[in-house]
């Protein structure tokens, strides 16, 4: 990761036309994807030419995107479809995982394919029976002569049916505990990918995150980082970028909801019905906007911390850094959901609750309800309580 230039001059500015095109496709497909709970393949195809490779360094044929670029693009996508924004952010997080941790051979094989838009990566970290713990794994990689055998069931794999490749956490060969975890890359053609159930959730329906079983063999050099050292990747790359990317997706979703709500309220075409002088309405709009500005400020500040840390070669494992990253996730998940809930109250039944309202508040609320559950806030609070104990002087990152 490199420090990114300011928003208005960043890659998102250069790629404005591509982003607008993807958003138009996403907007068009969002109602059907939500209804059918299917991953929008047309949106993925629109992302391929330029945006799937956003985080690939220039040396490997990409534009060399940084954290701020990832946030800018994810925010824009979130405004039209939170599922698309989440899938994009998670793919980009996987790409940075490859950039920062893969060996030369794997990076040389994989990064040009990503830059060309031929490799959409899905993340396989969930596993039954471990309660969503990112840092442990039960299914063990089997070391055979010169290759590794993968046999892995995962209950939630966002975009798994469409993915061209997977980054998979597994217990390391001959591990002594479930905490000895390796991250491996497997291309779709190296695996047998078997869907093991449906996907019929409250929201995030277009993310197509149904369960999969993955079996196959991969060469030894497709281990990302060292065997047993997934923790380093999680602490320095996956964790920070997940929290930043998810928060951007949620903020984008709530921002889009506010935009559409304000558009309806300001619409004079049908003889404006809303009483824009209502103090109750004004207060509710203010509160919603305040929540989003709070999240935005925290998101940009945290991104800056991550960029500064990357530039100085330091890691992100200090308690005050982990606390800020976790606080961002918790705050964004709560405040973005609350903001949309406020807006529903503000505009009432017709534009707040009906599915066919142009405000889209109903889908935004359902989608955002997943935010607190996606790497659960309850668990993060337990981590943060421990981390708080380690910093009695209360210093800030």
């Amino acid at each position, binding site marked *: 990761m490199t420090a990114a230039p300011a928003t208005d001059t960043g890659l998102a500015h250069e790629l404005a036309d591509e982003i607008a095109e993807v958003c138009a496709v996403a907007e068009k497909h969002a109602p059907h994807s939500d209804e059918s709970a299917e991953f929008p393949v047309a949106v993925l195809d629109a992302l391929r030419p330029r945006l799937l490779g956003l985080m690939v360094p220039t040396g490997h044929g990409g534009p060399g995107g940084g954290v701020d670029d990832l946030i800018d693009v994810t925010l824009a996508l979130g405004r039209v479809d939170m599922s698309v924004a989440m899938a994009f952010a998670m793919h980009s997080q996987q790409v940075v995982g490859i950039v920062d941790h893969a060996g030369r051979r794997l990076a040389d094989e994989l990064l040009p394919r990503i830059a060309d838009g031929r490799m959409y990566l899905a993340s396989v970290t969930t596993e039954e029976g471990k309660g969503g713990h990112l840092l442990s794994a039960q299914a063990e990689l089997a070391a055979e002569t010169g290759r590794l055998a993968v046999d892995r069931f995962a209950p939630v794999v966002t975009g798994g049916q469409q993915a061209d490749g997977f980054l998979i956490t597994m217990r390391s060969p001959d591990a002594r505990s479930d905490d000895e975890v390796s991250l491996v890359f497997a291309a779709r053609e190296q695996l047998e990918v078997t869907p093991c159930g449906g996907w019929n959730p409250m929201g995030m329906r277009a993310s197509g995150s149904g369960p999969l079983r993955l079996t196959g063999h991969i060469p030894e050099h497709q281990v990302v980082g060292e065997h047993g050292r997934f923790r380093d990747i999680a602490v320095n790359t996956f964790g920070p970028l997940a929290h930043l990317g998810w928060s951007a997706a949620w903020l984008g979703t709530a921002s889009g909801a506010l935009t559409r709500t304000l558009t309806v309220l300001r619409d004079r075409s049908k003889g404006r019905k809303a009483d824009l002088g209502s103090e109750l309405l004004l207060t509710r709009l203010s509160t919603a906007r305040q929540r989003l500005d709070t999240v935005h400020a925290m998101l940009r500040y945290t991104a800056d911390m991550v960029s500064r840390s990357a530039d100085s070669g330091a890691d992100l494992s200090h308690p005050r850094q982990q606390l800020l990253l976790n606080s961002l996730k918790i705050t964004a998940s709560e405040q973005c959901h609350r903001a949309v809930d406020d807006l529903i109250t503000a505009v009432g039944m017709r534009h707040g609750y009906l599915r066919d309202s142009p405000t889209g508040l109903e889908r935004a609320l359902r989608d955002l309800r997943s935010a607190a559950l996606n790497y659960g806030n309850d668990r993060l609070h337990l981590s943060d309580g*421990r981390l708080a104990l380690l910093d009695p002087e209360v210093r800030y990152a």
Partner: protein
Amino acid sequence: MDARFTETLRPFLPFLEGDPITADTPLRELGLDSMQAIELMFALEDTFGAPLPDEALVEETFRTAGNLWEALLPALPETAAHATEAA
């Protein structure tokens, strides 16, 4: 590493199974999770009478027994550190 250190550390490594603790002994892989890492820090503070320095509270410190010991050394009272170097 002195004996008080390894004795304090041993109960936090459930997968060690009686092997000796050396500087290269990995801590995370042998079962030191984040909650236990905090308990271990408090136990070390009780044993040596000094907390780990703030700058040592990073992932690298908890990678191996040797790293943790190195991080602890500057915080030790003179006598303990000298006794260790002599030993």
